[in-house]
């Protein structure tokens, strides 16, 4: 995000907060105006009004409510006259009262030109549920292949050969990502500068995947400067490219980072909370360190921000306590301290903790440190929870999901389907083409499942070439239709091994917990039996629940 865009976003947020504040304060001013009618004790009321109006005169215009600010200034002068000129007081007080009563209305009419009226761009799927990808590629064969592969994965792809229309094309639709060939000899390379400039004007940069014949440092650097989230040298492994594309969307859609602030100084803790909240993070504060571990469990923070000097406890001791628990080993702990003595800092870090920020700390420095730590921690913990090759849930986790979803189905009386999927003749793929190619096939199926299934569906890698999908709110018949369409898409994927092209298929078995029985003791076993039948009947098919 460029500085200007960031500023606009922040100003818009502040503007909203200011409006909320006025919505509370202006009615208060009206109430005070009513008190003015009681002639005995007007002086303190007038003084208070003058102060508040003075403040409003200064702030309203700054937040774009020019007319309101002007009016407040006039009323401030009027309040002053009431106080200093007793002769005019009666008439002036009446006008002041009327003016104050009109302020809420003035706010309602005030439509400050918001510094940022554009919606946040996002890579949301379009009406057909497809993410639209733009590809700038001069080689028609590579463009065709990529386009083909990505549409098999469920994306919509527009290809472009000429770089000069790139920016116009980017502006013409809500693209989810750009794939650009930046090989030094082709036009895409010259478009990089324009692309960089275009990116600077967006709230959120468009994910870019760069392709090049040149793998040198300089080429990678140029790619990164243009906002690249992925860099591939030719020949491009399209499955890996799709994988990277998907990951770049996931980063954008991530949950906000969770930050736990441990500080006995309530005001300071509130301030940190405000700064981090403002940057879209979720913040909880712990004032009483005795509550720390309980709150850790309830909140599951990505980062802990810890005051190092607290009465009764030191931040280092608390950090060591956190580290006693295996579950919290991966959570970064950042100390807040007035300590600038590097020897003392080193000693603290040796005991526990990951980083120091020294008070006084600027908001920008705090934000950067927390953000960087949180981002890294999130990546690491996701990598640990997921199967490293496919990014899907691991065996034990998907089994747990099956149990959870079946329980939920029974409780809510909404159907759930379970699919067990196995790639056909996978052993011969490995034997004929080698394990590396076999792995590509597995990843391709994983990506395809992720692409075609819904976000609420759970997908796991159950064994070598075996997958399990859990589909909540989905009856067996619907699950069969969905899996059949995925099966067709998968069989159309072109895999390459050296110069040879080949295709793969899969078989699947489905079980479901649904009306009328709602009874499913061994969902995975039943799905497995149906999978076995599919294999027996000649493979490349899906066997669902037989009508009873």
């Amino acid at each position, binding site marked *: 995000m460029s500085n200007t865009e*960031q500023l606009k976003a922040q*100003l818009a947020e*502040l503007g909203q907060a200011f409006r909320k504040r006025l919505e509370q304060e202006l009615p208060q001013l009206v109430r005070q105006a009513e008190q003015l009618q009681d002639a005995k004790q007007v002086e303190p009321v007038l003084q208070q009004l003058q102060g508040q109006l*003075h*403040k409003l005169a*200064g702030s309203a215009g*700054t937040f774009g409510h020019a007319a309101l600010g002007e009016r407040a200034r006039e009323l401030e002068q009027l309040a002053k006259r009431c106080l200093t000129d007793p002769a005019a007081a009666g008439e002036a007080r009446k006008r002041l009262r009327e003016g104050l009563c009109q302020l809420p209305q003035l706010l309602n009419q005030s439509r400050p030109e918001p510094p940022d009226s554009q919606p946040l761009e996002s890579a949301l799927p379009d009406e057909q549920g497809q993410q639209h990808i733009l590809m700038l590629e001069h080689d028609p064969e590579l463009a065709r292949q990529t386009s083909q592969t990505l549409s098999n994965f469920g994306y919509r792809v527009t290809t472009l050969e000429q770089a000069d229309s790139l920016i116009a094309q980017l502006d013409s639709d809500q693209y989810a990502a750009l794939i650009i060939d930046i090989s030094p000899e082709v036009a895409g390379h010259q478009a990089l500068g324009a692309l960089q400039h275009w990116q600077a004007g967006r709230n959120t940069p468009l994910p870019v995947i760069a392709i090049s014949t040149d793998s040198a440092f300089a080429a990678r650097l140029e790619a990164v400067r243009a906002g690249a989230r992925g860099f591939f040298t030719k020949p491009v492994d399209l499955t890996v490219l799709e994988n990277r594309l998907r990951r770049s969307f996931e980063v954008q859609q991530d949950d906000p980072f969770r930050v736990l602030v441990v500080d006995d100084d309530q005001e300071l803790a509130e301030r940190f909370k405000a700064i981090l909240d403002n940057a879209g993070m979720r913040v909880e504060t712990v004032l009483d360190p005795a509550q720390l571990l309980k709150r850790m469990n309830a909140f599951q923070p990505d980062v802990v921000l810890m005051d190092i000097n607290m009465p009764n406890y030191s931040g280092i001791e608390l950090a060591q306590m956190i580290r006693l628990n295996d579950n919290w080993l991966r959570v970064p702990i950042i100390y807040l301290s007035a300590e600038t003595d590097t020897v003392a800092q080193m000693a603290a870090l040796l005991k526990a903790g990951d980083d120091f920020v020294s008070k006084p700390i600027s908001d920008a420095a705090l934000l950067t440190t927390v953000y960087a730590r949180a981002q890294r921690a999130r990546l690491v913990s996701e990598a640990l929870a997921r199967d490293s090759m496919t990014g899907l849930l691991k065996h034990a986790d998907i089994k747990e999901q099956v149990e959870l979803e079946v329980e939920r189905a029974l409780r809510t009386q909404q159907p759930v389907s379970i699919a067990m999927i196995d790639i056909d003749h996978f052993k011969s793929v490995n034997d004929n083409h080698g394990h590396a190619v076999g792995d590509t096939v597995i990843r391709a199926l994983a990506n395809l499942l992720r692409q075609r299934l819904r976000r609420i569906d759970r997908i796991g890698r159950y064994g070598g070439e075996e997958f399990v999908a859990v589909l909540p709110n989905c009856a067996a018949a619907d699950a069969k239709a969905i899996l059949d369409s995925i099966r067709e898409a998968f069989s159309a994927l072109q895999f390459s091994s050296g110069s040879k092209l080949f295709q793969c298929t899969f078989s699947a078995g489905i079980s479901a917990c649904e009306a009328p029985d709602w009874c499913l003791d061994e969902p995975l076993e039943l799905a497995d039996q149906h999978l076995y039948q599919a294999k027996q009947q000649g493979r490349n098919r899906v066997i669902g629940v037989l009508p009873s």
Partner: protein
Amino acid sequence: MSQLQRILHIEDDPSIQEIARIALEVVGGFEVKTCDGGAAGLAVAEAFAPDLVLLDVMMPGMDGPQTLERLRELPGLLYTPVVFMTAKVQSQEVEGYRALGAVGVITKPFDPMQLAAEIRALWEQWNVEH
């Protein structure tokens, strides 16, 4: 000419505090410390060692001119340029603030996009004069 980097902002209105902070940090690239009153500002002024102080004129308790007077009693802030911020704009008032030792006056309402540039201009002018 030395670089303008650290700004101490003393202001009691939280809305103005926030918008000025963003305007100065994001647009200007300055490091800003915000205090919500004269007393709080005096307490941190020496430790923060600002290059410039931005001071609201009308505050409850200690007002801007009083705060300025007390700031000058701190050895580290004897020569630090101070800019007043106020909603009043009559020119004789501006002269009055200058007489108190302020290098300039920013009037409220201000344009958040321009605040950093205004402060920088006052800073440069002050540097030329000193």
